[in-house]
């Protein structure tokens, strides 16, 4: 069948519209993630860091502050064991956050990190973090959630304080359907596979 000139133009334009829909659905979100990762936008810290041997800059001390807060109805107790640490850039540091589930049901929590100043996000490495996994606490259970981090020696000179904040989300409802059909692929696979499938061993650096 011969297409008329009108149909040809219309088809091209439908193609353009479909292309823009795909752009919005499949290009913009990953592009935004990549952009955030590169620029540290929104204080998103990177994923698990494989530590490389680096000289510890003992001539410099950076203050790292820890903040813990709960998202809306999250009933857990959640706080850092220490609120401030003085660290030498390049040195691996350990700390723990304390979590307690005061409710009578088993719950799953997910901590989401954010860091200020934003531009230092790329200089703050976590070799081990409870935020890489969902945390399950049985009713009444308490846990020490480990964090091991390294401040990069390349941290810009002007930065003396880094504040790392964790917001704890109640994801019990979110994971429930998953536990019944654990491996079922889901629409929009963007969901947290990077959160669920992380290995839990702590890595030794160096």
């Amino acid at each position, binding site marked *: 069948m011969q297409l008329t000139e*009108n149909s040809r*133009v*219309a088809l091209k334009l439908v193609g353009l519209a479909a292309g823009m829909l795909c752009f919005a659905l499949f290009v913009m979100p990953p592009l935004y993630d990549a952009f955030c990762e590169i620029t540290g936008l*929104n204080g998103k810290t990177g994923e698990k860091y494989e530590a490389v041997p680096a000289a510890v800059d003992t001539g410099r001390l950076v203050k790292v502050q820890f903040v813990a807060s709960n998202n809306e109805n999250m009933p857990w107790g959640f706080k850092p064991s220490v609120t401030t640490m003085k660290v030498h850039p390049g040195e691996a540091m350990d700390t723990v956050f304390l979590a307690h589930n005061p409710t009578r049901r088993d719950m799953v929590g997910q901590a*989401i990190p954010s860091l200020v100043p934003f531009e230092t996000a790329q200089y703050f490495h976590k070799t081990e973090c409870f935020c890489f996994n969902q945390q399950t606490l049985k009713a009444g259970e308490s846990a020490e959630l480990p964090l091991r981090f390294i401040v990069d020696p390349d941290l810009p000179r002007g930065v003396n304080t880094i504040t790392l904040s964790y917001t704890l989300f109640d994801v019990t409802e*979110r994971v429930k*359907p998953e536990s019944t059909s654990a491996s079922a692929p889901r629409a*929009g696979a963007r969901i947290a596979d*990077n959160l669920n499938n992380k290995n839990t061993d702590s890595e030794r650096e160096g």
Partner: protein
Amino acid sequence: MAHGPQPGFKRWLYTTNHKDIGSMYLWFSFAMFLLGGCMALVIRAELFEPGLQIVQPEFFNQMTTMHGLIMVFGAVMPAFVGLANWMIPMMIGAPDMALPRMNNWSFWILPFAFAMLASTLFMEGGAPNFGWTFYAPLSTEYAPPSVTFFIFSIHIMGASSIMGAINIIATILNMRAPGMTLMKMPLFVWTWLITAYLLIAVMPVLAGVVTMMLMDIHFGTSFFSAAGGGDPVLFQHVFWFFGHPEVYIMILPAFGIVSAIIPTFARKPLFGYSSMVYATASIAFLSFIVWAHHMFTVGMPIAGELFFMYATMLIAVPTGVKVFNWISTMFRGSMTFETPMLFSVAFVILFTLGGFSGLMLAIAPADFQYHDTYFVVAHFHYVLVPGAIFSITAGVYYWLPKWTGNMYNETMGKVHFWLAFIGLNVTFFPMHFVGLAGMPRRIPDYALQFADFNQIASMGAFLFGAAQIVFLFNVVRTVRGGRKASDEVWDNPQGLEWTVPSPAPYHTFSTPPAVR
């Protein structure tokens, strides 16, 4: 039944005639304009005094949301599509739109979309209450259950707009009369051609963003949910990537309308035709790279703030070209001030004013003070009401005698203009002051010191609303009868639409006209 409309209601249901479809678009958009206007009056009535008098905060939020959605998608956009349907074939010497059946479809899905949207008002949990910008997670995790209906109605509106845009582009590219080169097309056709491309580029992005919302709400994804690894700020980026071109979709056809009207009543050809075309294209291009000026306060790298600030200010250049061209067209013209001209001159003045407050908002450091205050409300109402609404009104008065064959009542038209002009300024000018003083937008109650200006604004709003009743009455009277209009209607107007009889016959340009 070969030449002429079907009798009765079937004419409107089955029609593929661009004039019928244009009329339906225009009546539909006017109905939506009244509905959205009533919601605005609920808002202004509540804000007449501090404290809660008339509605509860939940309902107030539904009113602000629905007012915005209905005005943007139901009133302004269909009105421009209606004008395009009526005028573009007549302006380029085409017998009809290129894809007449799709034209019928793109109109007839609209009433269903808005019926679905309006029905959410009666649902449990109420209508959408998260603002017309429907930021996640307000529109996902915290949304009323009716949000799903809202999402589907946006999908349908988007499909309608995209089909309308495809039709307009195909018509303009393929159906021009011989000799009607691109650079001979009236500016209304040019601005609509560019607008249609904007629509096709960004309406799918809107469809995409509501689809992501739908997935987050019902299918367990986490595009916008921080708990699952998503980011609510992503929503704002995707939304405004649609949203900023959208505001030009609502203003570029307006530029075309006043570019047709001002030369007629200044009795001079339009000054700087080709610069108008290039300015329109530049504005359309720039609209894609300025979106984040809506979100200076979400936390952006300084380089981003500066880029979006400068890019935004750059838009003032092509817009300035247009304003100066209109002024130059009027300069030393033999001007008369019939109703369409009054609305057009008011458009130039007030749109420029709204543009200036836009420039103030574009200054990133200052925006932190203005953000989400009534200053923003004042700004976008100054560009949309005198911009889009006044230009549509001007276009209706300008072409109504051609459509109906009857002259409208000039006195009543002038009364409409002055009521609307005064009402508009009394409503929105004080909002600049309360905004600068710190009154937040989308709030049902406010601190006592804002009371005076809010009372003034509310009175202006009711005046503006009353003015539209005069408009409706005038249009209905003109449709039903009145002094017969000549074929030219005005004093030597330019354009092919004035070469056909008044009222325009059901089929025009069945044989292509000769273009000079």
